[in-house]
């Protein structure tokens, strides 16, 4: 019986420990968010900062080209990877039989999703920047990130497609629609909200990615990139560059402000994804 009491005491201790662990993770998160926002908000909310051009040597630079670069890169990457991952997801969920082929595709997807992003960066640099002679540019970065994000985007897209009830497919096929027509006219439209939701999460990742783009897209530009073949400087990479070069006197201000702005963007994407996900689930 005394042993039983011991069991109860260890249970209370364990419960305490787990509460601490659980709360610690939330506290850590809050601490990081509050700290970064508090430090950078004053800089970041200043229109002169986020609408200004960056300076290479002088203090007082802004980060407008970096914001544009980030958004541009997101759009370009999604534009490249979404069609591919929808195609691949359709193959995996509608056509593929369980077997060697789909097994090895899954293996490759799993591998892609564990490779360090710096490896993608080096690969993108050798293939797109050097071998294809594109130079460091948005397109090279977008292609690199498209490969990097393929597994996660594909998984989300595939899930959305698999969630389409089979009865829709049956109904369409029984009306004499071919498989492809069924996919185009019924499966994809039904899965679209889910696919959109699945697309948003990778957007956050693209915004935050730095190791894969510093050698493919660029680190510093003064002008807003317009052409996909222009060198660009996405915010995440620029934040790293600014602190590691510290060429300008006010680099702390720039990094603080840039980090806060980047965090706000990523949080906005996250909550948008949650919101859309919830709305999608309710349907």
């Amino acid at each position, binding site marked *: 019986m005394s042993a039983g009491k011991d069991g109860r005491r260890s249970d209370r201790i364990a419960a305490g420990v787990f509460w601490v662990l659980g709360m610690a993770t939330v506290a850590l998160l809050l601490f990081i968010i509050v700290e970064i926002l508090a430090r950078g908000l004053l800089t970041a909310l200043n229109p002169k900062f986020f609408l200004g051009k960056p300076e290479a040597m002088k203090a007082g630079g802004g980060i407008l080209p970096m914001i544009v670069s980030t958004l541009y890169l997101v759009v370009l990457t999604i534009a490249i990877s979404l069609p591919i991952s929808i195609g691949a997801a359709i193959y995996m969920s509608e056509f593929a039989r369980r077997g060697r082929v789909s097994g090895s595709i899954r293996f490759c997807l799993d591998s892609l999703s564990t490779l360090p992003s710096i490896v993608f960066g080096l690969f993108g640099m050798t293939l797109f920047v050097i071998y294809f002679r594109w130079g460091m540019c948005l397109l090279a970065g977008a292609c690199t990130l498209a490969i990097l994000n393929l597994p996660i985007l594909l998984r989300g897209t595939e899930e959305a497609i698999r969630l389409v*009830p089979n*009865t829709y497919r*049956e*109904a369409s*096929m*029984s*009306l*004499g629609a071919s498989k492809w027509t069924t996919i185009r006219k019924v499966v994809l439209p039904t899965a679209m909200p889910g696919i959109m939701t699945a697309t948003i999460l990778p957007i956050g990742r693209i915004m935050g990615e730095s190791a894969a783009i510093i050698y493919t897209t660029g680190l510093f530009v003064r002008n807003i990139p317009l052409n996909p073949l222009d060198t660009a400087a996405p915010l995440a990479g620029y934040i790293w560059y600014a602190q590691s070069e510290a060429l300008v006197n006010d680099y702390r201000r720039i990094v603080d402000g840039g980090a806060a702005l980047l965090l706000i963007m990523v949080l906005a994407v996250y909550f948008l994804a949650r919101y859309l996900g919830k709305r999608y689930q309710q349907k």
Partner: protein
Amino acid sequence: MNDLTENKMEIKNLSMFYGDFKAIEDISLDIPSQRITALIGPSGCGKSTLVRCLNRMNDLIQGCRVEGEVILDAENMYTPGYDVIGLRRRVGMVFQRPNPFPKSIYENVAYGPRLLGIKDKQRLDGIVEDSLKKAALWDEVKANLQESGQNLSGGQQQRLCIARVIAVEPEVILFDEPCSAIDPVATQLIEDLMADLKKNFTMVIVTHNMQQAARVSDFTAFLLVQVQGDPGRLVEYGDTNTIFTNPSDERTERYITGRFG
């Protein structure tokens, strides 16, 4: 077996496998033209399997295999190279759970005609109205054709599905327990509708409901799995009246009097 009616379909020695599992074995059965044929039998005896063989819906299932023949208008639909897409337009299907697309009522009905390449708005309008009328749904939905088909009640959804099938003007319509998911009033409506449609279509209905089979069908086939794990076999087939009043097989009698199943 029935000399007065022509056969729309003839099922000949049909067996069907899910992978290694034989679901039905050696079934031969004629589907008379412009009549309603009911398939009855306890759960798992292969009614759905059989009815889905009739428009090759089983093609969708991986590892499915068929032996035997199903003749539609003198042609075996299981010859290699047979036009399956065309077949499914000729042999429509209504499922157990109403399954309208997540589109408007209009688009649900127009789906089939659009597949056939009809783009002309006026013609589509006509087909939609006509089909909904035939499905006895027009009056209830004509004001809200743009609303989602999924907002209708269960019974309305099922009639919408019937309208959707009618819109491609099939020759045969297969019903797989069309009323098992809807209420009695809606069931009544659909049974009336089926009697109406007999003028134009050959129909096959799978049902668990003995009364329903007796009420709506002209011919009835009774399927049974003798021993668990065995394939389903045809026990008896004949005129619905005969089957329900004077079955020749003792197992049929026991089933229709509710002693098992």
